[in-house]
């Protein structure tokens, strides 16, 4: 018989984690599909009893998305326009049924290369708060996810929040999801972009991330540097001039590696153009 625990406090949860190997469950929307029809074989900590882990809070320095916060709650929370990419991603996570229970933190813990939430969080310079009984550590999202279904999460730790530094909430953002059907679809590729314009309408800072084109979604730092100081009209040209060395797409049922390379460039352009508020001379798909 496996064990099941539904602690009411974080301390209780951390105490349990300190003494054994547990599977942490929040929205369970990745948990059950992975389980399939097999019987439960892991000990489960159900964190849905921990009231403190729910909701989006604002501190002097951060927006803090507590670990149980689901995508619908995030969508309904008034947030600065820099979060628009994340909110657009929220609407594309599975279906409304999924968004109503699946947590933001769970999306990053599941560490799927196709996690729609990750690129949108990356352009917000999101950090992950990990707590164990011994310590709390805060790590950048880029360092939290190590690979396909791999994170740095230790057995005695749990993610307690996803934190967005206020310094990264300036400007506007946009998200572009590319899938083979309209709803309920795993992305072939997706891009998120956040753009801050200077007083003269030029790009002061750009943050760009692409998902489903590498084991872990990637920020495109080279492109970001090249965009700085440039007018939005040059976005397409600049995107076209950069090799996306950060990406390592594969061939799979959803599309070829070559397709992903070509499409990534296109959706990055579209996300950037939208985030920069520039008019795209081409209609969106």
């Amino acid at each position: 018989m496996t064990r099941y625990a539904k602690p009411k406090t974080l301390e209780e949860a951390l105490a349990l984690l300190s003494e054994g190997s547990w599977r942490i469950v929040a929205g369970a929307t990745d948990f059950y599909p992975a389980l399939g029809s097999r019987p439960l074989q892991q000990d489960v900590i159900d964190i849905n009893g921990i009231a403190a882990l729910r909701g989006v809070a604002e501190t002097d320095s951060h927006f803090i998305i507590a670990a149980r916060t689901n995508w619908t709650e995030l969508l309904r929370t008034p947030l600065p326009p820099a979060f628009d990419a994340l909110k657009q991603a929220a609407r594309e996570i599975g279906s409304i049924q999924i968004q109503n229970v699946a947590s933001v933190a769970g999306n990053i813990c599941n560490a799927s290369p196709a996690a729609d939430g990750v690129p949108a969080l990356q352009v917000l310079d999101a950090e992950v708060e990990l707590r164990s009984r011994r310590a709390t550590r805060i790590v950048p999202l880029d360092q939290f996810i190590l690979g396909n279904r791999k994170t740095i999460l230790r057995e005695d730790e749990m993610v307690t929040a996803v934190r967005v530094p206020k310094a990264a909430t300036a400007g506007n953002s946009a998200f572009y999801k590319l899938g083979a059907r309209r709803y309920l679809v795993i992305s072939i590729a997706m891009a998120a972009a956040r753009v801050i314009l200077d007083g003269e309408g030029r790009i002061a800072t750009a943050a760009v991330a692409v998902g489903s084109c590498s084991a872990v979604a990637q920020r495109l730092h080279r492109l970001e540097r090249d965009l700085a100081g440039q007018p939005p009209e040059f976005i397409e040209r600049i995107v076209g001039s950069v090799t996306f060395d950060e990406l390592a797409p594969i061939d799979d049922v959803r599309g070829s590696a070559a397709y992903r390379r070509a499409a990534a460039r296109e959706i990055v352009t579209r996300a950037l153009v939208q985030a920069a508020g520039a008019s795209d001379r081409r209609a969106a798909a």
Partner: protein
Amino acid sequence: MKNDRAPISFTVNGAPVSVSAAPMRRLSSVLRDELGLTGTKVGCDAGDCGACTVMLDGEPVCACLLPMASVEGAAVRTVEGLGGDGLSALQASLLAHGAAQCGICTPGILVAATALLERNASPGEAAVQEALGGVLCRCTGYRKIVAAVMEAHQHIPGRVPDFSLPPAGHAVGASPVRLDGVAKVTGAEKFGGDSFPADALSVLVVRSPHHRSAFSFGDLEAYVADNAGVVAVFTAADIPGINCFGVIPPFADQPALAEGETRFRGEAIALVACESWAARELDLARFPVQWRELPAVMEPAAAQATGAALIHSSRPGNLLVQGVVEHGDAKTALANAAVVVSGSFETSYVEHAYIEPEAGYAFVNDGVLTIVACTQAPHMDRDDTARILGLAPDKVHIVPTATGGGFGSKIDVSLQPLIGLVALKTGRPAALAYTRTESMASTTKRHPASMQATIGTDADGMIRGMIFAGDFNTGAYASFGPTVANRVPVHASGPYATPNYRANARAIHTNGPVSGAFRGFGVPQATLMQETLYDELADRLDIDRLQFRLQNALRNGSETVTGQRLETGVGIIDCLAALEPHWRRALAEAEAFNVSQVGVRRGVGIASCWYGCGNTSLPNPSTIKLGITPDGKVALHQGAVDIGQGSNTVIAQIAADALGLPLGDFVLRGADTSITPDAGKTSASRQTYVSGKAAEKATRTLREKVLRYANVSAEASLQLLPGGLLLVHEGGERRRIDLALLKPDGDGLVFAAEESYDPPTTPLDAKGQGKPYAVYGYGAQIAELEVDMALGTVRLVKITAAHDVGRAINPLLAEGQIEGGIAQGIGMALMEEYIPGRTENLHDYLIPTIGDVPPIETILVEVPDPEGPFGAKGLGEHVLIPTAPAILNAIRHATGVLVTKVPATPSRILAAIQEARR
């Protein structure tokens, strides 16, 4: 802290409940198995289909992803709680719009849409799509669902609305709500998995993890002894009869449980029968079997290579069947043609993806094995199951439940012999509901095809000749492979006069999934080849693409490629002509759009279909029985299984008008092999035509019997009154028959008739010449779409469909068939590709969602065929045939490139665009 059962209290539909359940047990399982609320359906257990949608504290969630622990203290609403005493406005609207076909997705649709309507009573289309994006429907094509939700506010909640049925003589051509409809919108309908007896054993199936594998069992007795709750294990050695089934008896080759070697991934090798509580705890990975993977052949080309291992030793070259049709001299005609085009085309495995995985239970009573399960073919189930289990056919009784979609795959037996074996051996009821993965891995698929063709015309653009060759991957077992190989050459010309013709289609075995029946039996594949080449011909000839088809279309008096002279009822010209104004509009709009847009190109495509109704040159009878009961009803013994397409309603409408009594006087009996005669399988677009014709004949016989009894002429009219009175009116005279005074027969009927109808066909000769079908249906569709030239994505703008149905017995149901077929055609064209071992679920295998089906305009063309009942022709399969080629032609029109493999995914479309630019 143990993961043990604990009392969990919550409310369901307002009523408090407390159940004892493990905290991580899924809510869907508790609702269905503990609370008996089977309106909540389980289609995938993974959040991919939305059939299990319930409201949790007012928000829609998937009950299959919700741990019971999260339900504590919450308010759950299910489909059973939406209507109260009558129907909710939305339930009534769904019925009125014909938005529930098989009904399996309907509860999920209803709950998700109710959550929307409670916030926004009159939502726009975009809001409806957003709200329902997470519920998959495989039957309707969603358009009627969208309309029903948008117009729900026009219905009055709280009572069963007055769905008045048409009066006597006016049933045919009317669109009454489906006679079996109310239960589909209340959650009361019982599908295969909805009525398992509480004491039934659960049956788990051990399946091959490899495409081909040898296997041997470990100690099965020890396994039974060591696992609490496991009652028995059964293997092929336990099968009392002939361990071999197949839909076409001479080709039967498939074991119910494999013997020593499996031929495809997902093939069953053993059954574990256990108590239902034990089934939840049993890990089949620990079943004692040793697998030894063997080299597998997955492609027809490899299967045909010299020295390739034989999948079946009796079939050299792994060739199951080759079908050939030869007419005139195609080679010479092409050599002399003014314009000749050639091409090749490939299609993929397509999964039926009905939202109801196979499910049913079996029990033995008085020496009769009864199987209660979803199916498309009860009498075939009976015969196959009886043979496997060594029983006489009359010792097997098939009771079809409602069937949550079939589309061809629920013709073959699946779980029937398995649960039958367990019930027979243990003496206890045995129940099994396939998991989604199990359903996808083990049941039939559409044949992948690899085709080449050459077509030539004279200088005026008249077709002179065509050569077609197609290899169809028929997978590990025969199933309907012979049917596909024989049907394709007959149809590969399309509905066009082709004086010189040679076509062959080979069904070739591989270690892939079994390819069987799927809406169109290979014709959708062949039509992709032919219709895309027709566009190239028209362009080369500089003739408008619709005009090119019009000038070559079959007409009354034309000869088909099998030498059959079509005397009457040929409706393809009428279909194409009906599309002409739409075609001109669409072309003009596309041209205007393309002038003003950069990066997105609009395209318009057209394609036609024809399709012979019923079996190809083989006997294909239906028998229908009906009669009048002592209490004054007409009992229709309706054996044509309604899998959502509407035969329960359509057959009754035909009978009503043939009898001259109102539809409201009819009660349906069956389908059930003990009370309904064999109306054949629901396949080949044959039920409206063949069973409808049998119903018409039986009804006319019944009417004659009544008239003779009353001693009146054929002009007399009938009237049934409550209390069992039959009034017969003639002229001013009125005769009164007190039905209660007559002696009922064994079926409880005081007047009864039973008639059969078998389409008059002739065998095809060695060159495929003859009369393979007595009735054909015709159609043509226009696809309008936009292609994003940088991403290769397609946005469908509109589909316009003109189908010649002969006579629309029920126009609303006919529209429903058309819209649903189009949705499947869209899937085949753009996204559906089944890869064994890789896409065995509904998130890797994509079918269209509500956002993927554009507005559909249906034009019902009625060119009656004197052979069909009231002139009706079949429709069910025709409808998806033109869709994919019309889409491919529209993509070509938009981009200038033809994608020659479906699905035309964004990846493939962009590759084709880039290739053309090089």
